[in-house]
C-alpha cells in the first residue's frame, strides 16, 4: 500500500517538476586554503541552476574556446550551523547547463583558476562506458542497455536498466508463463468433459 502511495506521489511530483533540461551534475569539493577539486561530472536530466550575478570569492565558469557562456558563484563558508566543529572541506553539487562535450568548466577563487575540467572527458569514443560517460553524453560508448545511473525514458529501441519500473516504453512486458493453477483447472475441466461424454454415450 505504501509503495502505491509513494508511486502516486512520484507521478504527481513528475508533473510538478517542469521545465527540466539536460544538465551537468557537477560535484565539487572546496578546501579552506582556497583550492578545489572536481569529484564527479555527469550529464543528466534535471533542472538547471540559474546564474548568480552577485560576485563572490568562489565561482564556476563554463567556457568554449576562451569565451565564457555561463557563470555562477558559490558561497563557501565551512561553517556548519549547530555543529561545534568547522567542516574540513565543503562539498557542493551544482546543475550546470549542458551544451555538449566541448569546452570546459573552471572553478575560480578570487578570480584565479583553482581547478578545471575538460568536457571532452564526457565521451572518449573508446567503446567502453567510462567514469564520466553515460548514455546522454556518450551514447556511442554507453549503449542504452548499459547501466550508467541515468535513465533515458524515451522510445529508442532499447530497454534502459537505469529506469524504474514502467518508465521506459521500450521495457515491455517479458513473456511470463501462465500460472500452474490455470493448467490444473484446465485439465480438470477436460476430465469432467470426458466423464460426461463417457456417461452420455457409454453408460446409456
Amino acid at each position, binding site marked *: 500500500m505504501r509503495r502505491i502511495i509513494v508511486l502516486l506521489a512520484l507521478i504527481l511530483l513528475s508533473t510538478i517538476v517542469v521545465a527540466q*533540461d539536460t544538465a551537468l551534475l557537477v560535484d565539487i569539493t572546496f578546501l579552506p586554503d582556497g583550492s578545489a577539486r572536481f569529484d564527479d561530472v555527469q*550529464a543528466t536530466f534535471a533542472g538547471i541552476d*540559474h546564474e548568480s550575478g552577485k560576485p563572490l570569492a568562489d565561482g564556476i565558469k563554463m567556457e568554449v574556446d576562451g569565451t565564457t557562456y555561463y557563470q555562477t558563484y558559490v558561497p563557501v563558508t565551512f561553517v556548519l550551523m549547530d555543529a561545534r566543529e568547522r567542516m574540513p572541506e565543503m562539498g557542493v553539487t551544482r546543475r550546470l547547463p549542458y551544451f555538449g562535450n566541448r569546452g570546459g568548466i573552471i572553478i575560480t577563487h578570487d578570480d584565479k583558476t583553482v581547478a578545471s575540467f575538460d568536457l571532452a572527458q564526457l565521451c572518449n569514443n573508446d567503446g567502453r562506458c567510462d567514469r564520466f560517460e553515460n548514455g546522454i553524453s556518450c551514447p556511442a560508448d554507453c549503449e542504452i542497455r548499459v547501466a550508467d545511473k541515468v535513465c533515458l525514458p524515451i522510445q529508442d529501441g532499447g530497454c534502459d536498466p537505469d529506469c524504474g519500473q514502467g518508465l521506459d516504453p521500450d521495457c515491455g512486458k517479458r513473456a511470463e508463463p501462465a500460472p500452474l493453477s490455470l493448467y490444473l483447472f484446465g485439465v480438470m475441466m477436460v476430465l469432467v468433459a470426458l466423464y460426461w461424454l463417457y456417461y452420455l454415450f457409454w453408460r446409456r
Partner: protein
Amino acid sequence: MRRGQITLFIILGLVFVIIVSLTLYLIDVQQREQENAALSALDRAPILKDDCEDGTKNGQCGKDRPLQCRNGVMKPMCSDCGCPTNELCNVDGTCKGRAEQAKSNFTFYILPVGYAPDDREFLLRAEVLKAGMFATMPFTDENFVIVENTYPDGDCLTITRGFDRHVQEWLQKQTGHGLSGVRFEDGIPLYSYRIIGISEQPQDEARCGCAHSLMYSPNVFVGGSSCGFSPHVVLHELGHTIGLCDEYDTCVYDETNKYMSQGFGHPCLNGKPTADNSDCTDICCSKDAACCDGRFADKKTDGFFNIMGSGDVPPSRRLNSQTQAVFWVYFCGKFGVCP
C-alpha cells in the same frame, strides 16, 4: 463399484491431473524462456555501419549541428556535435532554446541515513517531522516524499555532501526527472526542495549537535541522538536554510551575521538575542553547548521560546511572530505554499 475402488479412482484421477498439469506448465516455462532468450539476442544485434548520402562519414557530425551520421542516417546528436549558440542539448539529441525554470511547488525529500527505507523508527520520525511542518505552514502530504533508497551513514560533519546526488539519482530513476535547479534572488539561492537526512546513528552531540545544516543550503542532517527526534530541531535547521541565525549565543549570532553579510549581502533575517528579548545576556559560549534558551516567543510571559534558540526542551518551543513571518515570506511568497 465398491467405495474403496471409487476412492482409488479419485486419487488416481487427481494424480493424473497434477502430473499432466505440471508437464504442460513446465513445457510452457521452457518455451517462454526460449522466446526471452531470442528476444535478448535480438536486442544485442550488431549495428550496421554506413556513411550518409551527403558524404558525411558514419559517426561524424554534419554541417548543421547537431546532426550526425549514424548508420547511414543523419540524426540529431547534440552530445557529440554540440548545439547552435544559446541552445541547449536536449535528452533526445535535439537542441532547444534555454528553458526558463518554472516556479514550482515545494518538496521535502526525507532521506533514510543508515536506516532501511521501511524501518519503523525511520517512518515514525518522518511522520513526527511532517506533523511539525504541518503545524507551521500549510504543507500537505504531497509536499513530502520518502526516498526509498538508503544513504550510507558516515561522518556527521561531511555527510550532507552527497545528499543531492543520491536523491537526484534515485528521483531520476523513478520519474525520469531530476531535482529542480536553484534560482537566485539578489544573490540568495532559492531551492524548491529540501533533503532532510534522518540518521539512525547516535553521534557525538558535543561535536555534531542534534542536527545541522548550512545557511541557504538545501540539505539538512538530523542525528540519531534523542534530541534529533524533536520536530522543533528540524524546524530550527529549516530556519537556517531560509536565512535565520542561531539565537542561543550572542557571539555565534554575531559571527553568523558577519559572514551572512559578506557571503550573501544581507544580515540574519531574525534579530539578535538580547537581555530584553531573550534569556541570554551578552555572553559568549565557552563550552561546546548553547549558552541560553534563546529569544522569547513573543513575550517573556508567554512561556514559549522561539525555535531558533537551543534544542533543549523544556522550555516549550514555537515560532515567534518574526520567525513565522520569515517562513511565510519564503514558502508562500517564493514557492506558493499558501493556504
